[in-house]
């Protein structure tokens, strides 16, 4: 190697061994030079950002962990014990934050339903799950099993829906909404693309109406006036009404995403299916919908994330989701004023679940990317 420079004629053309890259252009130093200190301006920005980051991390770590108080009887105790966050308020109410007012003796039921949820989701989310075929039947049966476990009947004590709350309620509304809005949304999208004028116009107006109004107005309709639209004397459960509204609201957004997918399919696909003599439903089921759904998966997952986050709005019509529990806690004179801790705790829960969903969507996008 050292001779190479002095005696260039020693190698046949193309036989010269590879030289190491110039100093400072490879490895950690090279990476830093390229990405952090490429110019004086860049260096200044890096230093500023680093200072900002340091300040942020130290103050956040101090408030969150180092100076935080975990055990205390009231806000005053907390403030005496440390200058950071007062997590005692969460610790004392953690059961309410998780289950609402679900009876303590029956809490194994939602926990079991939660664990079974992963078994039901696994074959749907990952195509390499062992025994996938059998597991999918379990996934189909899961909503009924979970409903039975949580509500009761058939040998289990019936737990009234008014006592549902906390993260459990978020998951109930979110998962029911997600599961029910997908088929309805697909039907609406197909209706919007239909050749039949009256079907198209009904679907378009339904979708545009639902997308044009805020969810909160629909929830108000559900909570205050849905009974007017039912035959006199009927009254049904507030949670069911909310589930219906959340579902149809989300299905309008799903419909738009799926429509985008349907529009992206080349005309040739429809024409080829027609040429094969396929009926409309056969074309849809075998040719267009599978392709459209594949294209629209990222959008669908984004809609699911939005729906999941929107479940928090039920607090405004008086359901006890984590925010509702949080507000109840803050109304307690002992803990009055600890809103930052309470809301940040709930925010963390949402952050982790939504972040996981968006990561999954990225994974799926990569998996389904069958192009070149």
């Amino acid at each position, binding site marked *: 190697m050292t001779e190479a420079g002095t005696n260039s004629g020693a190698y046949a053309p193309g036989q010269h061994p590879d030289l190491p890259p110039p100093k400072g252009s490879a490895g950690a130093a090279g990476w830093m030079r390229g*990405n*952090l200190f*490429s110019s004086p301006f*860049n260096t200044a*920005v*890096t230093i500023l*950002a*680093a200072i*900002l*980051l340091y300040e942020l991390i130290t103050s956040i770590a101090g408030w969150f962990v180092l100076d935080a108080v975990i055990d205390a009887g009231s806000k005053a105790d907390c403030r005496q014990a440390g200058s950071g966050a007062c997590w005692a308020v969460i610790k004392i109410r953690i059961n309410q934050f998780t289950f609402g007012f679900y009876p303590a003796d029956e809490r194994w039921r939602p926990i079991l339903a939660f664990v079974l949820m992963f078994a039901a989701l696994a074959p749907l989310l990952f195509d390499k799950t062992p025994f996938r075929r059998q597991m999918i039947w379990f996934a189909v049966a899961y909503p009924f099993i979970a409903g039975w476990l949580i509500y009761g009947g058939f040998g289990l004590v019936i737990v009234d829906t008014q006592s549902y709350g906390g993260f459990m309620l978020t998951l109930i509304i979110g998962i029911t909404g997600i599961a029910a809005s997908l088929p309805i949304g697909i039907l609406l999208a197909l209706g919007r693309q239909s*050749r*039949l*004028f*009256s*079907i198209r116009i*009904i679907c378009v107006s339904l979708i545009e*109406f639902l*997308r*044009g*109004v*805020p*969810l*909160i*107005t629909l929830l*108000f*309709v559900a909570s*205050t*006036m849905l*009974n*007017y*639209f*039912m*035959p*006199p004397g009927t009254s049904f459960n507030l949670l069911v009404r909310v589930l219906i509204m959340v579902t149809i609201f989300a299905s309008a957004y799903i419909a738009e995403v799926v429509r985008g997918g349907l529009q992206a399919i080349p005309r040739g696909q429809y024409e080829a299916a027609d040429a094969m003599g396929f009926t409309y439903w056969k074309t849809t089921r075998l040719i267009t919908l599978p392709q459209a759904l594949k294209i629209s998966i990222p959008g669908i997952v984004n809609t699911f*994330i939005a729906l999941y*986050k*929107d*479940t*928090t*709005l039920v*607090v*405004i019509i008086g359901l006890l989701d984590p*925010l509702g529990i*949080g507000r109840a806690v803050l109304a307690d004179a002992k803990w009055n*004023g*600890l*809103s*930052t801790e309470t*809301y*940040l705790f*709930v*925010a963390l829960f*949402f*952050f982790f679940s*939504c*972040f996981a969903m*968006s990561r999954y969507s990225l994974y799926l996008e990569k998996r389904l990317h069958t192009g070149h």
Partner: protein
Amino acid sequence: MTGPATLQPAYSWSRIWREEKSRGVVIQIMVVLIFFATIAWLIGNVTANFAALDKTFGFKFLWQLPANYDINQVLIDYNSQYSHLRAALVGLINTFLVAVVGIVLATILGFTVGTLRLSNNWLVARLAYVYIETIRNVPVLLHILLWHGIIINTLPHPRRALNVGDATFLSNRGLYVPCPLFEDGFGWVAIAFAAALIGAILYHRRAHRIQMETGHQVHSVLIGLAIVIGVTLLAFLAAGSPIGFELPALRGFNFQGGINLLPEFVALTWALSIYTSAFIAENVRGGILAVNKGQTEAAQSLGLRPGKVLSLVVLPQALRVIIPPLTSQYLNLTKNSSLAIAIGYMDLVATLGGITLMQTGREIESMMLVMLVYLLISLLISSFMNWYNNRVRLVER
């Protein structure tokens, strides 16, 4: 003998279903019938329920005096003796105020973070990424409640308010900013400003035309800016500085004077802005990435400086990709402003859909109006953005 007769298709009802065209008609008739039957059933139920409750349907309650409730932020003349209609209008204006301020803030923040996300400085890009992911994975209602809580619970009392130059104060009563007082002669300044603005625009157009015709670059932006500022300043001085500021000052337990931005308003606008900015940032990033790298390289090889590459080549093309999703973000922000009710900011939902609804018992009418207004706002914003989108669209042969 029987041959020709069998070729003649037998008349039968099933043919209607087998033939595509007639089947379509049958399906449509059925769907329309079901649709109207459902609506008739719903209306029938409402009538029956109303009759049972001795209620009537009508919008006269809007003019009913007095509304009998106060609103904490009024931009037009209002007190509790006015009608429900007036209260709803106050609420609507409050909704608009949050929407407009929120949209402007969210756009600025979103474009900044979106470009930072693409910075070639690794640390900056990562920081922007963390900002986007933390903000957008937390529900917007939580943002609103969190910021409202921070303002109410952790900011100091007015006596120890955060003080910016003795003119702006931030405390748990909200933000107090100086209030401009327009004296006589301010009209002249305004006229001068308008005239200078028109002049600058005309000059800019002329410069553009000259550049288009001859290729000579005429610097018009800086000169135009100088015209506007200079003329306005001259008029301002000539009229004897006809503007004064009323500064907020601490009297007793709270500030007096100046403009008070309520904690509710500040929390709502700020929360909506940062929440939406995270989504806008992702749209901006996607739009910039959608511009072919060859465009940047071509611009660089023509000798354009980095700033010019961005403003003349990349951004105009990226905007075409950015605008459609940007529209839906604006619409989302406007619709999300209805969450104001959670912290007691009196917007349209909190006035017409909240207190008026409760006081008059007109649930259906109030909610119908609220929904109609949001539908109209959605239509307005999307048609404006469509117009703008058509303007910047790629003109192809």
